[in-house]
């Protein structure tokens, strides 16, 4: 009984944390700070997932986001103006529309919660979750798993192609453009 209460309390903590930090992402003056708020939001969600019994997924989420936010912070420091929040940062457009869209999205997603009778079919064996995932991953979802692998490979290639400063043959940007409109000597 008290365990459940505790669980609830932790949940509410995570829930509130996820939403509040999520909100703070866009209410801070520093991009770096925003990144860490985002990380916090993800961590809270990861926590909820763990509470729900999906330990593996929750932890992966947290770890992945941590890495990602590091990259994000670096990118911001590298390229973006005003990375550390030296000046007040308020760079928004179409604010009113965005607020309306955000509220509307919430309403649309919340509506089913109130209106739809979701099936009541709770997880019978939460403790086996990770093992089941392993089976699923290498069993039924083999194709999905492999496809995801190819997607990640493509992403790596793509990220290198797009972002690397140096290529195999010197400057990566060298010659990386459309053909000239006039006849060049090679092509005949």
């Amino acid at each position: 009984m008290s365990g459940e209460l505790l669980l609830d309390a932790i949940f509410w903590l995570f829930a509130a944390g996820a939403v509040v930090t999520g909100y703070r992402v866009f209410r801070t003056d520093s991009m770096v700070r925003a990144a860490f708020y985002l990380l916090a939001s993800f961590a809270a969600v990861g926590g909820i997932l763990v509470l729900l019994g999906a330990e593996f997924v929750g932890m992966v989420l947290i770890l992945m986001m941590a890495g990602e936010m590091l990259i994000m912070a670096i990118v911001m420091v590298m390229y973006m103006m005003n990375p550390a929040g030296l000046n007040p940062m308020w760079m928004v457009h179409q604010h009113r529309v965005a607020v309306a869209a955000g509220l509307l999205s919430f309403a649309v997603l919340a509506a089913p919660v109130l209106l739809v009778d979701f099936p009541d079919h709770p997880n019978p064996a939460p403790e086996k979750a990770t093992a089941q995932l392993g089976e699923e991953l290498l069993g039924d979802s083999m194709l999905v798993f492999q496809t995801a692998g190819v997607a990640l490979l493509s992403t790596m290639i793509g990220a290198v192609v797009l972002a690397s400063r140096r290529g195999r043959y010197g400057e990566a940007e060298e010659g990386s453009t459309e053909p000239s409109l006039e006849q060049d000597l090679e092509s005949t």
Partner: protein
Amino acid sequence: MPDSEVMPMDMAAAVGDVVPEIVLVVGGVVVLLWALLAPRRWQSGAALLALVALALATLATLPMLPALGGRESLTFADTYARDGVAVWSKLIVLPATAAVIGLSVPWFRSDPRHGEYYTLILYGALGAILLAGATDLKEFVVAMILSSATGYVLTGYHRRSSSGSEAAIKYYLIGALTSAAMLIGVAYLFGLAGSTTLSGLRSGLPPTGGVGLAVGAALVILAVAFKIGAVPAHAWMPDVAQGAPAPVAAFVTSIPKVGGLIFLARFVLALPTDGLDWRLLVAVLSAATMTLGNLAALWQTDVRRLLGWSAVSQTGYGLMAIVALGLSGLAVPSLLFFLLAYVIGNVAAFGVVVELRGRTKLEDYLGLGRARPLLLGALLLAFLSFIGVPPRAGFVAKLLLFGAAIEADYIWLAVLAALNTVVSIVYYVRVLAPAYFDAPPKSIPVLGRWAAIATLAMAVALIVVGLWAEPFVRAFAESGLLP
């Protein structure tokens, strides 16, 4: 087919169902290795390897044709289909990809570092193929992301092209938003049905799903709309067509549509029809897409951009087939035939742009008829096919699409499509008329043999498929659409 029946899965047998896909994966890796290891002057060899991979994949696909004894079934625990439609999607995508590679070779000649490009093209094609075969939301999501990821990179491949990078990031922004939204939609569907396979959705989705079902379905459809360039997520299409390297534009504006439209067909059929009029939704999207695409294309002065908008409008026509699914026997044949005709035509049209070294201003096409009659011929064939003038393939496609819409009692949609076709003539003719009627102001240099061959092959294919439509129509009509 309940999940339990195929469990436990015979992995070895299942691998046999995805030989073409495996060939593409391996081919991509081989190409990548070649690109990394081969000396600079042999970089183009990567193209050859990619072509070999495509040819092998095609060969591996042929035995799967139902007409050649191929078995139509779901595989990998219902996550993937090897039915007629999936096979034909491969047979459309693979040769078209080969043609795009033909276009790419001379285009990228000046870029020393383009071996990876062919890997990405192969994986892009793979993404479209997997999307077309996906019968499971997980597979759908990863296939989407594979297709999108390669698409973004390909679009921004020219590092020095400022419009290329702009197009890439716009493409990305729209794609990221729609797929982020799609994820929660997928989650809702999973929550309602308790399963991610389409067969599971079909049996598990409660008709009383109401708003939840609608939200889930709408978000998934929105993501597919992005993939195929339909309203409201169409905005990337013209930008990419204009900004991306022309061969990439040919690829990105056509190949993913094959996967997207076919998955959409599978997906909507898994939705319950009572309480959820997905037909009307798709019909509205179709109407909006074709109309907006045509109207916006009217006054374009940039041929590539015009082709992009035309690609938007073509998506609208293609969606008519989806509307008719389940109501008309012509729906599946019309969808496949549309894709066949559209992909060939689009590659041919962009091929002309490629062969003209990416010339894209309207006035650059002045007098093309006298300077480069064959190229104008190809462009003419492609455009007339888009309009739907016989005997090009596009005509049979339009015929089937209209027929399907009428049979499904969506006469208003057919009429609107007809009106749109009339409007579309104007912008196609705005390119063709000066090209045919005027005299060329100066010589028009071209890119080279590879691109010309690929372009003309596609153009000839338009006529051949248009005149010799029977085998295709028959095969399409006999193709199953699982689950």
